[in-house]
């Protein structure tokens, strides 16, 4: 047992003090030391001994006593020992300062340490140990440069001063010059081979930093051999084990960490690593405890940052984003340069993203990206943020990069797909498909969302087969398969058919009773809805309705399913049921704008105008006017109202039109690409006669509307056709109508056929006009107006044929037949109007009947004449033919004769020559006296006769035509009377359209009340007459054109009649009762 001997003053004796039996009270020892005036080195030894035994208080007491002024005085010449005592105190306070976490106490400790060192320096400026101490103090204070100069002072004097070497090594280490540091450590080891393990620790750290892991490990192990309790070495080895990243290594590492913790529970690094470990094992409580301790024991920035990071991560994983965010922030604050420790930035970014602070998240992720430019996760996160910030292009770029860097990262492709879905569906589809393939290859389950998205894109592109498959893949196994399976289908569907009620859920109850499990996981509802939507699109409405009902059976609040069922009912014209279903939806959510809009639509279909307007208003209000459908519907409402009023109040009309325009414009402002609003605006413009502008608008809308199955806009085709029609471009208008009819309506729309017929009518293609009308009648046989129109067309055809200067008997015959039909049609309509079957003006029909009858009489005469003429023609032709035949025969005979004669003459000449001249003369005379001359004369007479006859006949024909004319003028007067009758009724109309043509500038701004009243009046005035007619615009202008025409021509009767007819046809157009919304809407609802 080590002892010290305190020499007793003035004697040879010594007091023996056993070092392991030092008294508890240091004063005892102090008394002895003072009393015996013991050498100062003894003081130091005893103090050190106390320190070693952990009796810090006694240590301090002895040293403080040993550095007191009286000691200084007494031992004034003992310099070294006094310095040593001061330095020991300095080191002690440096140490205290180092481990102290509270800033103020820390400062105080350092100040004390500085004082002791200064005092030591005053005793001897050049004492190296003081300098070393100062250096250490400065190091502890983090003033590396000053520390370095302190150490250098020592090393200049003695380049082998071990403590200075170590200090300088530390300085170099802190400066990051690890090889320099290593050199210094090595030198220290050479100078002092048996130095404590700490040096080897330093060497190990340097080598570690230099990447010489094997040698570093050796160094640490050596340090540990020398000092089995060397926590740093243990931790260092543990870290290295952990970083080996093998299961065994990690286990070994953790064991070491644990041992280090047991040896010294306040090593921040060990604590951090342990916390890290427990984080991964999910023991968050331990994580928090450990990190909190770690934070308490260290003020080393990076370590603290690590601790905060651990803590933040723990909270993050627990979902406490607020706290996690704060700790991440604290962690980030401790970091000088992001590249030292980037994880907290990432975590912070994540949390900020979660909390919706996109801009901050953006900066944090960007910092991460700076350091790891190819990190897919970061790229994806940034991409996501850019999406949120609306910078789609940038987001796409990032995600594309992510997908490119790791072409096997399904998530990246999914993200990319989701991003592209709104801009480039084709590319989105590719991305999703790639993701699907990757996931399948990896044997992972493809997320339902991805399959759903693939299905939706296929759906949108009209690739229904693929869409169907995709939805089915997404749905997987479930009750729906049973429902759609054709084997069980018969029962199911039969059962469902009995409840066209749609609301009936018995089917499912029965299904459950049959032992089947009716289940619908929440995450498959959307897919199921989409599948049903698809089935609807491919016209399997029955199956679709079963699926919608299944959704509602399980999720009564799924409003859209109600709306789709309502839409199906509406498409089947079951308005009552449709309204019920919409109301059902409104029960779930009374302010659901889609439901309200649909209800308004239905009310409109039911001719409930006032209610419809209120409903649209409500829909609009429910979304603060942001729901464009409701606004559009209101616009449409106003537009219809403007044209609907039979009484044609011009002011009201203007107001409504203006209001409609305003509403359309509002929608366009909100959604610049709203086709329906653009279409509406075009309609209003056309209504005002600005055809060129509206044509441009319609053309653009038409172009934009092609491409998606969800956008079906036949209206714009019709409107465009109307504009062409109004501009007199009949051929184009017809083509447009025909294409529209074929493309969108499977040729089933009688209304468009009517438009077409009207165009043919204007183009004076009577037969085509008639055929179109007959087709329309075939489609809509109960529409009597069409029959009226057909009658008018036939009448017009006949009249125009009779008007022709040249016509064949066949033509006239068919004219007569046509007129007979027309008369029949009109007289039947007249009879029917007695039964109030339709709203025709009886007088008008009778006028037509009368007119047709007269025309018929005339036509009959014409026919007779034409037939007679034909007969005569035939006779004449026959005569001419016979004459020609006779002539031919004669000529032939003559030629024959001539030939014979010549032949004979030749013979004569040859034979008889001049001798028989006389005989020849006789023969010649004989020839002359026979037929030719007289015959020729006869013939010419005959010709003359023929000419005269035909002349006469022509004259006769002329006369008869005159007679015709007079008789016709007789009809004219009669008809004029009829016209007068008509006119008496029509001025109103005229006025109305005149006013209507006037600029709407003078329109009064009526306030809502007035408008409300007006609307009531509208409703009262029989708004149930619902011809929704864009048609009106063209028809009016056409009428105008006609009018101009009839004004310029002098009163040519047929011209007048034509005009009358146009008015008539116009009227009949106006009388159509088809309730179709030609201008807008409709489709929008289906697009959800």
């Amino acid at each position: 047992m080590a002892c010290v001997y305190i020499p007793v003053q003035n004697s040879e004796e010594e007091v023996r003090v056993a070092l392991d039996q030092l008294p508890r009270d240091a004063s005892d020892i102090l008394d002895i030391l003072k009393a015996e005036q013991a050498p100062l080195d003894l003081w130091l030894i005893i103090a050190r001994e106390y320190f070693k035994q952990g009796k810090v208080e006694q240590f301090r007491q002895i040293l403080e006593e040993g550095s007191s002024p009286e000691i200084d005085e007494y031992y004034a010449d003992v310099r070294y020992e006094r310095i040593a005592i001061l330095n020991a105190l300095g080191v002690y306070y440096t140490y205290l300062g180092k481990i102290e976490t509270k800033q103020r106490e820390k400062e105080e400790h350092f100040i004390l340490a500085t004082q002791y060192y200064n005092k030591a320096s005053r005793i001897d400026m050049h004492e190296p140990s003081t300098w070393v101490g100062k250096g250490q103090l400065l190091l502890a204070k983090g003033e590396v440069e000053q520390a370095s100069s302190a150490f250098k002072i020592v090393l200049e004097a003695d380049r082998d001063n071990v403590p200075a070497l170590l200090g300088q090594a530390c300085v170099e280490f802190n400066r990051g010059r690890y090889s320099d540091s290593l050199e210094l450590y090595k030198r220290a080891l050479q100078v002092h081979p048996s130095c404590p393990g700490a040096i080897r620790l330093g060497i190990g750290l340097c080598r570690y930093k230099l990447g010489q892991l094997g040698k570093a490990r050796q160094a640490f192990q050596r340090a540990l051999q020398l000092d089995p309790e060397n926590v740093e070495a243990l931790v260092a080895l543990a870290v290295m084990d952990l970083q080996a990243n093998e299961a065994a290594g990690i286990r070994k590492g953790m064991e070491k960490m644990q041992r280090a913790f047991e040896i010294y529970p306040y090593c921040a690094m060990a604590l951090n690593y342990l916390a890290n470990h427990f984080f991964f094992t999910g023991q968050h409580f331990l994580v928090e405890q450990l990190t909190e301790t770690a934070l308490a024991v260290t003020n080393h920035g990076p370590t603290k940052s690590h601790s905060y990071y651990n803590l933040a991560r723990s909270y993050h994983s627990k979902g406490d984003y607020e706290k996690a965010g704060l700790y991440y922030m604290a962690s980030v604050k401790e970091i000088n340069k992001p590249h030292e420790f980037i994880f907290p930035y990432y975590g912070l970014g994540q949390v900020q993203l979660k909390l919706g602070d996109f801009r901050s998240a953006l900066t944090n992720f960007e910092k991460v990206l700076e350091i790891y430019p190819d990190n897919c996760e970061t790229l994806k996160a940034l991409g996501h943020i850019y999406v949120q910030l609306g910078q789609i292009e940038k987001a796409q770029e990032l995600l594309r990069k992510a997908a490119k860097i790791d072409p096997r990262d399904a998530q990246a492709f999914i993200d990319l797909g989701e991003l592209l879905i709104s801009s480039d569906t084709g590319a989105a589809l590719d991305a999703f498909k790639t993701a699907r393939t990757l996931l399948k290859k990896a044997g992972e389950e493809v997320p339902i969302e991805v399959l759903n998205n693939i299905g939706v894109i296929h759906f949108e592109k009209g690739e229904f087969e693929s869409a169907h498959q995709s939805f089915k893949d997404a749905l997987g196994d479930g009750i729906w398969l049973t429902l759609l399976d054709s084997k069980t289908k018969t029962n199911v569907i039969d059962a469902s058919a009995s409840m066209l009620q749609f609301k009936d859920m018995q089917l499912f109850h029965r299904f459950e009773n049959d032992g089947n499990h009716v289940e619908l996981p929440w995450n498959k509802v959307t897919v199921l809805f989409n599948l049903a939507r698809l089935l609807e699109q491919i016209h399997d409405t029955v199956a679709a309705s079963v699926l919608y009902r299944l959704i509602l059976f399980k999720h009564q609040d799924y409003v859209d399913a109600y709306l789709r069922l309502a839409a199906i009912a509406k498409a089947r014209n079951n308005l009552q049921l449709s309204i019920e279903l919409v109301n059902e939806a409104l029960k779930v959510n009374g302010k659901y704008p889609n439901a309200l809009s649909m209800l308004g639509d239905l009310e409109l279909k039911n001719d409930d105008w006032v209610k419809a307007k209120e409903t649209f208003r409500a829909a609009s209000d429910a979304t603060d006017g942001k729901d464009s459908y409701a606004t559009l519907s209101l616009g449409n409402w106003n537009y219809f109202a403007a044209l609907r009023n039979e009484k044609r109040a011009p002011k009201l009309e203007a107001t409504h039109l203006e209001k409609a325009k305003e509403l359309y414009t509002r929608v366009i402002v909100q959604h610049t690409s709203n086709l329906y609003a653009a279409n509406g605006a075009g309609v209003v413009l056309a209504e005002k006669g600005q055809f060129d502008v509206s044509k441009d608008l319609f053309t653009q809308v038409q172009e934009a509307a092609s491409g998606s199955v969800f956008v079906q806009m036949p209206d714009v085709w019709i409107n465009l056709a109307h504009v062409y029609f109004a501009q007199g471009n009949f051929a184009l208008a017809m083509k447009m109508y025909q294409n529209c009819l074929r493309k969108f309506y499977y040729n089933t729309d009688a209304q468009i056929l009517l438009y077409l017929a009207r165009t043919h009518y204007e183009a004076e293609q009577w037969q085509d006009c008639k055929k179109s009308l007959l087709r329309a009648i075939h489609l809509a046989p109960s529409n009597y107006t069409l029959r009226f129109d057909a009658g008018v067309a036939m009448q017009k055809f006949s009249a125009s044929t009779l008007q022709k200067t040249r016509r064949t008997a066949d033509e006239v015959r068919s004219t007569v037949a046509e007129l007979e039909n027309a008369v029949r049609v009109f007289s039947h309509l007249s009879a029917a109007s007695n039964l109030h079957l339709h709203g025709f003006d009886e007088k008008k029909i009778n006028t037509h009947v009368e007119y047709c009858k007269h025309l018929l009489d005339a036509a009959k005469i014409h026919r007779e004449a034409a037939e007679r003429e034909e007969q005569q023609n035939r006779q004449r032709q026959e005569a001419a033919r016979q004459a020609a035949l006779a002539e031919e025969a004669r000529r032939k005979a003559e030629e024959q004769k001539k030939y014979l004669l010549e032949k004979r003459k030749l013979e004569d000449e040859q034979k008889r020559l001049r001798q028989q001249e006389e005989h020849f003369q006789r023969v010649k005379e004989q020839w002359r006296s026979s037929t030719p001359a007289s015959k020729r004369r006869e013939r010419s007479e005959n010709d003359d006769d023929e000419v005269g006859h035909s002349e006469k006949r022509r004259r006769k024909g002329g006369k008869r035509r005159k007679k015709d004319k007079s008789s016709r003028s007789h009809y004219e007067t009669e008809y004029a009377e009829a016209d007068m009758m008509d006119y008496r009724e029509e001025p109103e109309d005229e006025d109305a359209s005149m006013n209507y043509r006037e600029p709407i500038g003078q329109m009064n701004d009526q306030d809502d009340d007035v408008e409300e009243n007006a609307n009531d009046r509208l409703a009262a005035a029989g708004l149930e007459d619902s011809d929704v007619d864009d048609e009106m615009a063209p028809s009016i202008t056409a009428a105008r054109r006609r009018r101009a025409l009839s004004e310029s021509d002098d009163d040519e009767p047929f011209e007048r009649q034509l005009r009358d007819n146009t008015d008539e046809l116009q009227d009949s157009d106006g009388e159509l009762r088809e309730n179709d919304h030609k201008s807008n809407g409709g489709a929008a609802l289906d697009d959800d």
Partner: protein
Amino acid sequence: MKFAGLKSVENAHEESVWAVTWVPATETRPALLLTGSLDETVKLWRPDDMQLERTNTGHCLGVVSVAAHPSGIIAASASLDSFVRVFDVDTNASIATLEAPPSEVWQMQFDPKGTTLAVAGGGSASVKLWDTATWNLIATLSIPRPEGLKPTDKSSSKKFVLSVAWSPDGRRIACGSMDGTISVFDVTRAKFLHHLEGHFMPVRSLVYSPVDPRVLFSASDDTHVHMYDAEGKSLVTAMSGHASWVLSVDASPDGAAITTGSSDRTVKLWDLNMRAAMQSMTNHTDQVWGVSFRPLGGRVVSVSDDKSISLYEYS
């Protein structure tokens, strides 16, 4: 159960073909086809080679309906001008001309015994029965007006009767109207029985199952085909699949299938056991106005707005 296309005649008429029926075989000749068109003619065809046998004229406006007597000797054709012309199939000699107010003639069908011709009375909201011996009107089966409607109401046009069908036992007549209701009448008592509900759009074609006098099929503009228990007043099943109006429906003689023609330009074959469309023929390029099974089976014919006639083998 399938269709196989046999032959098509393009431009069989100058205009849309709107009606078709089989004229049953007589002792002297096999079954023939009778078609009616917008071009105002009625044409008779030999179905083996689709050779034109004869063209009947005499109608004004389009021919909307043709019907053949079960004996195959006489047939009737009706046009938009509301005349019904009854003629001898082989000689084209006119037998009778039945006149009605305009739009009071639409589809026609002879009863299974051949004693009566039922004519869908269009705007008269009734079915007219004509005696085929005397050609006198023997009964008018009117659809009762819903109560509380004033005669001035315009609703009568909604009851416009488009289609008519005899039950195979000849005891019932069903007629379909513009508003989608189907009315069933007791023929012997000339009495209205009940409505069949479910359609809300025009019912353009009706046919009873040849094997079950209770089962009625209806084709409607709502794109659906309904199968009713016409006696029990209940809807048995609804079949969807057509993209547009279903214009015509006919049942196979064996009662196992029906065929439909639609505005969507297709002819579909439906398996009644599966309640599903087995096949969809797409050879027409415009609305298919008429489909008809040969009474003896084995053949189906369809006519269309595209002016063509198509013949299929049904097996």
